[in-house]
């Protein structure tokens, strides 16, 4: 998928003025945020926090040992009958999948939701090669039908209202009029049934890979994840190399944390541990299972101070909690991963020059870290990225000059006092709207009046009046 993050400011401006988007995203983020709060702390605050720390420690341990765990996972998956492939780039992934599809003479591919397949622009590659690919997650199906991209890691179509989705189904699929989400869902269910039955290949992502058992784990709710891994003859799982975990006990812990953080469920409806193709005595399941381990920049991130971002389990909690995401939605972030974690991952994976506004797209309020099930210090990384922007000369010159003046003015009490006096004088004559960068302030707020006397003078007067 093309990176379009440098337009954050202008896309966000459109988003905050789009009433449909505001309605949909407010509803979606509020829903996710409040459900998570209940689910995570159903055994009390202390217990929920302890669970977070347990999950955080486990993910950090796994990332610390990543190369060893990947080798172990490969060995055990192979022993289980899974064909393991390694892809360095997005293009590698597309070529590998197309090779398999051509070998099997595939005409129809059924996909379950996978962010990494968006990352490597897989659907486009299928279409170019005349292979029909159908997204089967309801939200992803809507996205595909509307020819747009997902705006949320967990809720891909969070930015659309029910009215918009209804109109889309009526326009594209001749759905009879209804206002009922259950009727719309039933309509799509019927529509997608034959896709599952007839698909030659099923494609999924992967939430985790358990190294010690060689299992690909999928955590889903609708059932399409089970369909695409059970019905077609071939199943291909596309998984980032960072998704490997050490033990099945770790999986049990993470499955308590992930659904609570993502959707506020105790458990998702279907939690699969896929150990390979159909065994000889089994009545159904695919004959071939592939797992493509995808790097696509991750090994580069591994060597930086943003490696902590690789512990992310893609629950979307930081998106729901983020006051910026709540008013912009996900598309402004310009790539697959949005919200606070996207503001770190996008520059880290695709290059800072392709995403210069993202580290700035935060008030550093800290909610992302607070809700993160694995306690990723996103504000710390945003600050590091901002520092990198300055070091690499990727900032606006007006701020370079302004902050330099600020720094010089605040190293010297004399200059500081002088600056205060100028501001005190100046703010008396300020118009209601200011030009330049300060115009951003006065567009929504009045400017504060500087006090007639600074504190330091009041302090002196008080000391004079009340000698100690």
């Amino acid at each position, binding site marked *: 998928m093309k990176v379009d993050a440098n337009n954050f400011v202008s896309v966000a401006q459109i988003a905050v003025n789009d009433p449909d988007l505001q309605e949909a995203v407010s509803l979606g983020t509020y829903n996710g945020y409040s459900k998570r709060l209940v689910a995570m702390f159903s055994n009390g605050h202390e217990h929920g926090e302890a669970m977070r720390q347990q999950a955080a420690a486990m993910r950090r341990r796994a990332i610390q040992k990543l190369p060893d765990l990947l080798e172990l996972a490969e060995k055990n998956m192979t022993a289980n009958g899974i064909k393991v492939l390694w892809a360095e780039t997005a293009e590698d992934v597309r070529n590998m999948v197309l090779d398999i599809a051509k070998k099997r003479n595939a005409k129809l591919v059924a996909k379950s939701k996978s962010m990494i397949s968006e990352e490597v622009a897989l659907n486009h590659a299928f279409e170019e090669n005349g292979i029909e690919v159908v997204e089967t997650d309801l939200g992803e199906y809507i996205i595909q039908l509307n020819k747009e991209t997902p705006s949320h890691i967990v809720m891909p179509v969070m930015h659309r209202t029910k009215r918009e989705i209804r109109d889309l189904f009526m326009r594209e699929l001749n759905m009879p009029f209804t206002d009922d989400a259950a009727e719309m869902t039933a309509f*799509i269910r019927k529509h997608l049934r034959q896709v599952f039955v007839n698909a030659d290949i099923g494609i999924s992502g992967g939430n985790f890979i358990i190294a010690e058992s060689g299992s690909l784990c999928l955590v889903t709710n609708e059932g399409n994840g089970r369909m695409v891994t059970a019905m077609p003859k071939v199943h291909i799982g596309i998984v980032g190399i960072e998704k490997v975990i050490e033990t099945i006990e770790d999986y049990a812990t993470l499955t308590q944390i992930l659904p609570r953080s993502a959707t506020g469920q105790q*458990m998702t409806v279907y939690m699969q541990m*896929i150990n390979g193709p159909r065994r000889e005595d089994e009545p159904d399941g695919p004959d071939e299972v592939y797992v493509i381990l995808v790097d696509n920049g991750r090994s580069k991130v591994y060597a930086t101070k943003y*490696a902590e971002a690789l512990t992310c389990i893609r629950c979307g909690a930081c998106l729901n909690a983020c006051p910026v995401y709540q008013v912009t939605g996900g598309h402004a972030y310009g790539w697959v991963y949005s919200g606070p974690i996207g503001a770190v991952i996008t520059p880290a994976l695709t290059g800072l020059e392709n995403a210069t506004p993202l580290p700035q797209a935060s008030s550093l309020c800290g909610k992302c870290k607070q809700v993160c099930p694995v306690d990723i210090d996103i504000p710390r990384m945003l600050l590091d990225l901002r520092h990198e922007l300055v070091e690499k000369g990727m900032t606006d010159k007006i701020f370079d000059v302004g902050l330099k003046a600020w720094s010089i003015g605040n190293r010297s009490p004399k200059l500081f006092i002088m600056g205060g006096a100028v501001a005190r004088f100046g703010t008396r004559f300020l118009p209601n709207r200011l030009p330049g960068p300060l115009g951003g302030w006065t567009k929504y707020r009045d400017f504060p009046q500087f006090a007639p006397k600074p504190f330091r003078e009041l302090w002196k007067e008080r000391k004079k009046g009340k000698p100690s």
Partner: protein
Amino acid sequence: MTSARDRILGKLRAAQKPFDELPPAPPKRYMSRPEDLSAEGLRARFVQEVKKLSCIPIEHADAESAIEYILGVIGEDSSVITWDFEQIPLTGLETALNDRGIQRGQPRDDKVRVGITGAVAAFASTGSLMMTSGAGKPRIASLLPPVHIAVIHGNQILPDFDTWIEQKRAEGIGSFNRPANNFLITGSSRTSDIAMESVLGVHGPGEVHVVILV
């Protein structure tokens, strides 16, 4: 010539370890673990959780009442998708279906309305059914038909997923990854992709009955 695999692993190995120091793993915690671990307590909690998930638990069923209940759900349908009968802990089910002239449908027939399965275990803390693929146990039976009836024995109810994993750990990792697919079912297929409205029965069954035999 180095492979992609070697290059990726090489880069990871060449990098400094991402974390300076890793604190020792904190003591293990579990969410919502049942307090009453007696058979009665586990069953009560399981039933409570199943209800919360908008599924239908049938308690204290003996073989006769279980069969009667299942026939009631099947109603006038002429076929069902089922596991092999020896995999379902309910004697007499096969005969009862035959007596009614109810056929075993083709596994990929998406016209069949009801699927009948057993389970390898059930978890009280979350109301989950633990399933493993295997001989005579088509995965489709709990997936394709819109109505799923799972028949379990009361003594199959464990406290939680972690307990089941402890059992697998004791038996050896091979007992965990021998089946091609282990999966948990917790509630009915659901989505809230359209305006956050919770809708049951998207692609999997929207109606799940859990018959608990005494």
